[in-house]
């Protein structure tokens, strides 16, 4: 009984940490401009629209976050093996991972922008300095919370995987949740606020992204407050629910049917969410956007 109560406590804590991680991840990737919406940022100068948006073309968010989280887990695990205090080890691992993230971000921005020289897209060093540090700050929050989730799984729940292997699994899940939930909002709405709401991206508007802010020219930092209100919390909810339900079904049902109880519970949860998703999608299509007649 005590084991189950501790398990439920860890489940709640991990779910809350995951909500913070998801929100920070999406805010980070939108400020840095990563993932598939970045193709429009890359395209814009080629269509004659010079801009001050960051271009963090490291890879898709899932592989990138797999690296940051795995790396932080690996370094933290190494420090733990050397007898370091757990919190200090996790913080140091996260700091190293954040530095690596910042270095990759700068090389991606410089590389992509320098390769667009033919279209007159300049490198803005002020953008490089201000945006990189802001993405690093958000990345630190996202990585730290995810590593703590992995640490709780490895030590309190007694997961058979070691910390770096858990880092691969949950880093990938974090990047996938942030990418799947946050990118449609950033790519289809934020970059195209000058288009009809819900219209998607017409071919004729390709590359014509919003480049001006309330005052002056927009840099990616302006994506921060907007994402923190909308895309970020949605991604946080998504990743929080993923972590919560994953742990909840394991803690409660793994003792039934020699472990198959947890698998069946997982399948039932997926089916319930598919029904909810379908209902929400139909409701949204009927109530918003220009596609009502179609």
């Amino acid at each position: 009984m005590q084991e189950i109560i501790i398990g439920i406590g860890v489940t709640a804590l991990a779910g809350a940490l995951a909500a913070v991680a998801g929100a920070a991840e999406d805010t980070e990737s939108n400020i840095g401009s990563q993932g598939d919406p970045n193709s429009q940022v890359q395209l814009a100068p080629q269509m004659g629209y010079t801009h001050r948006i960051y271009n963090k073309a490291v890879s898709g968010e899932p592989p990138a976050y797999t690296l940051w989280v795995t790396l932080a887990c690996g370094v933290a695990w190494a420090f733990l093996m050397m007898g370091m205090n757990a919190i200090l080890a996790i913080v140091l691992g996260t700091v190293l991972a954040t530095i690596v993230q910042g270095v990759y971000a700068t090389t991606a921005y410089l590389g992509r922008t320098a390769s667009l020289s033919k279209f007159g897209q300049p490198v803005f060093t002020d953008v490089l300095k201000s945006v990189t540090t802001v993405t690093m700050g958000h990345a630190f929050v996202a990585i730290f919370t995810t590593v703590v989730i992995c640490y709780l799984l490895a030590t309190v729940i007694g997961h058979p995987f070691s910390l770096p292997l858990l880092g691969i699994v949950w880093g990938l899940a974090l990047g996938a949740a942030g990418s799947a939930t946050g990118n449609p909002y950033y790519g289809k709405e934020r970059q195209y606020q000058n288009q009809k709401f819900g219209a998607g991206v017409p071919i004729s508007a390709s590359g014509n992204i919003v480049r001006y802010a309330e005052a002056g020219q927009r840099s990616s930092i302006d994506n921060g407050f907007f994402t923190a209100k909308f895309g970020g919390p949605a991604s946080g909810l998504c990743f929080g629910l993923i972590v919560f339900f994953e742990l909840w079904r394991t803690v409660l049902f793994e003792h039934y049917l020699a472990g198959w109880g947890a698998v069946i519970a997982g399948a039932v949860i997926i089916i319930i969410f598919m029904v909810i998703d379908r209902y929400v999608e139909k409701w949204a299509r009927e109530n918003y956007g220009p596609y009502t007649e179609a």
Partner: protein
Amino acid sequence: MSVKVEASHGGIPHGKIAAAGIVIALVSLYIAVIGHEVLNVDYLAFFGGIAAIGALIWGNSAIKRLCSYGIGAGVPSAGMLAFGSGLFGMFLGVIIGGITSVWIIPVAVLVIALITGLILGWIANTVLNMKIPVMIQSLAELAAVGALTTIGLRTVATGCLEMGDGVFVGVGFIAVAFMLGAIALQHPFNACLGPGETQDRTNMLVIECGFLSMIIMAVISFVAVSAIAGWISLVIAVIGWAVSYKKYIALSKRDAAAWLDAKPFVDAEEE
């Protein structure tokens, strides 16, 4: 059949870069083996990092060649594929080395990975019907690059090429090496992609990514190797990274259309 579009013109041909990469990787790995087997010291472990950089230079050129067939969005996946298939060669090569002799590990890893890649390339081109002319050769090369990079980073972390005490695989540091290598392999070409791509800038970024990966493996290596070996790896990696990062920024400044600090862009419509 896909149409070939050159990613960038001129520069050193792929064959020469590949040859240089293989030589750097194998020679560095053998120096690490000599250090461990003959001299009985572990402070030559940093040569594993040099081997990884050699392999990455080769791999970057192979990715660039493969991706000139219009699979731009597939650059990051090529890195993952390389390391996924390369792990098989790395494991089998190390097992064969354990049965016979440590000295054959580098060559065994290279040959087994090449064969794995050939089979995967054949499946991609015939069974999956991709029909990309350089597919078979490129996947073979990428698998070999993945295997050599993993064993190089493993040497930095553990001080030796063989299975050892299970720190690398058992504890799971292999996951860190896998991700560090896979992103370091795909990042340089992916980041420098575009009409203004230049070979020297991309290669400098490969070296930068290699040293950056080596820094992390050097930090982790303190678990398995002596403190002096760990510090030697770390200091060499940090110096190598700082020099290559600075050079990469200088090359970016050379290639960029303009280098502006806190100045607005001038819009075509405003002129």
